[in-house]
């Protein structure tokens, strides 16, 4: 009997707790798993900002979006500094975001597989934040940008360290 009372108490306490957890979870934008870089037709409404646009304009926007998500910013080993080449890529991303103010973007930081994964996750976080902060400096809406670091866990090219030290932007 005593057990039963405790069980009921526990259930009573647990259920509101679970509801809270669920409602909190919904508020946050859940960073999704990396999506394919190919643009998604069903999401076209998010970047089609005018009814006056013709089919050609939409195609250009599609290509821009493709470039935005597929072109990484590369980094030197153990560095979270954006070099000139990286700066040019961030510039183009900032320009895209100016024309696509509604786009919710996940800025992903990655490392090559050398070194320790804990350190690499911290380093990937710095890379992602360096890109996010520069995008905001260049006029992007920071509230639309979230960062995530995968460290050395998601290699772009297992045979080439240079291709793995990168930041990729994913449109949610």
């Amino acid at each position, binding site marked *: 009997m005593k057990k039963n009372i405790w069980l009921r108490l526990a259930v009573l306490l647990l259920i509101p707790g679970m509801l809270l957890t669920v409602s909190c979870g919904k508020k946050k934008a859940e960073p999704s798993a990396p999506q394919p870089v190919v643009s998604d037709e069903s999401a076209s409404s998010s970047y089609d900002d005018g009814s006056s646009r013709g089919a050609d304009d939409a195609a250009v926007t599609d290509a821009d979006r493709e470039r935005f998500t597929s072109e990484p910013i590369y980094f030197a080993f153990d560095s979270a500094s954006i070099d000139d080449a990286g700066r040019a890529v961030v510039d183009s991303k900032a320009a895209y975001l100016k024309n696509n103010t509604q786009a919710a973007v996940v800025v992903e930081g990655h490392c090559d597989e*050398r070194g*320790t*994964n*804990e*350190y690499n996750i*911290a380093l990937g976080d*710095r890379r992602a934040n360096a890109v996010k902060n520069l995008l905001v400096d260049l006029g992007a809406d920071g509230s639309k940008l979230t960062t995530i670091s*995968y460290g050395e866990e998601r290699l772009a090219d297992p045979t080439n360290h240079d291709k793995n030290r990168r930041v990729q932007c994913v449109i949610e």
Partner: protein
Amino acid sequence: MKINMFGMKKIGGLKKVLVAVVLIHMALGALTGHTVAGEYNYISISNPFMNKIPIAVPYFSAMSGNADEKKIAREASDLLAETLEFTGFFKVIDRDAFLEDPSQQGIVTSRINFKNWRTIGAELLITGGVLVSSDQVEMEFRLFDIFKEKLLIGKRYKGNSDDTRRMVRRFAKEVIFQLTGKNGIFESKIAFVSSTSGSKELYICDFDGYDPIKITHKNKLTFSPAWSSDGRYIAFTSYARGKADLYIKNLSGKRGAVVDLPGVNLSPCWMPGRFELVASLSFSGDQEIYLLTGTGKIIKRLTNQWDIDVSPSISPDGGQMAFVSRRSGGPQLYVMDMGSGSVRRLTFQGNYNTSPSWSPAGDKIAFVGMVSNAIDIYVMDAKGGGAIQLTHNTGDNESPSWSPDGNLIAFSSTREGRPKVYVMTSFGTDQRRLIAMTGEQSCPRWSPSEIDY
């Protein structure tokens, strides 16, 4: 004869399974194990792995002689030899060299011709006998000193047929206690990361890699297991909610906590003897190390320097914290005095030093260093200097973790291709694969010597 009843614990899907094993301490003449305990002169403390003790472990005797018994006797003698060899202290003598066969001639002192064992270079001899009756197994073991021609310890154990491994380990523990005065590692476990199921999850296996059991089911990247000093909790990082969050798990499955602050929540390490841990969190905009309660609440910030501070390892006395910091431009090891908060740099060689792991005696720190793209494990004095390289030219070697007796180091390596978990002595000798599983294994973390859950 005195008979002790006591429970032994086994992990079975994390459910506590109590198996009663009857232990009979044999009083063999005046010689019990306790009469000579204290003479720990068998294993040299300064260099125990260079001069291994030659030990003979002949096949155990099948006491009633049936086929079942013979099979168990052979397996048990092999397991005992392997278990003792695992410690790095012993050289197990090839049975082909033996001049007599105690399984035929007898296993008690009066039947041992010590000269025959001295001739082949044995310094220690273990004989054993197995008696199977219905579903019960009885095992007796004797450890002899060949030069002194005397019995050092004799034990008899009785249990179910699936208890044989524990009986063998129990006697191995007695042998190590007899020779070193310490309990050894035979009841310790190793937590590690494996991708066997598709995503990286945490597993726990016995000290020797036996019986791996999956303990997380996140289906997302999960890593960096950290044992509490009582072995009841494991803290770790998982992407279960989409990003790097810190999880604190009670191994008996009762309670848990999550630290899911914005940013990355990484690299837990427990405070010895306390329900508190340190971890690296980046919610402030900078990766800094914090002291947390065992329920994940921040007590205070420990590091205050711009750039990455990560991978803390607390000294066994709780007074100091080694950690990795990028404050000088690249990752280097630093030590913080937990009382005063003062920090000094520990590593000055190379541009990349990470993964500090404080030895159980507190005098050494194992770590990972990268020198001209070679990633290897080193051990240095905790006070600084004296670094010795333990791995050489064998792929990337990472994640060193000390056995609770300080004699062995588990680590991960790509020496055979994909990352797997290996073990070596703390001097870098006897490197061998520890865990035989498919997929990739990494991040081994050795538990305290006895864990209770």
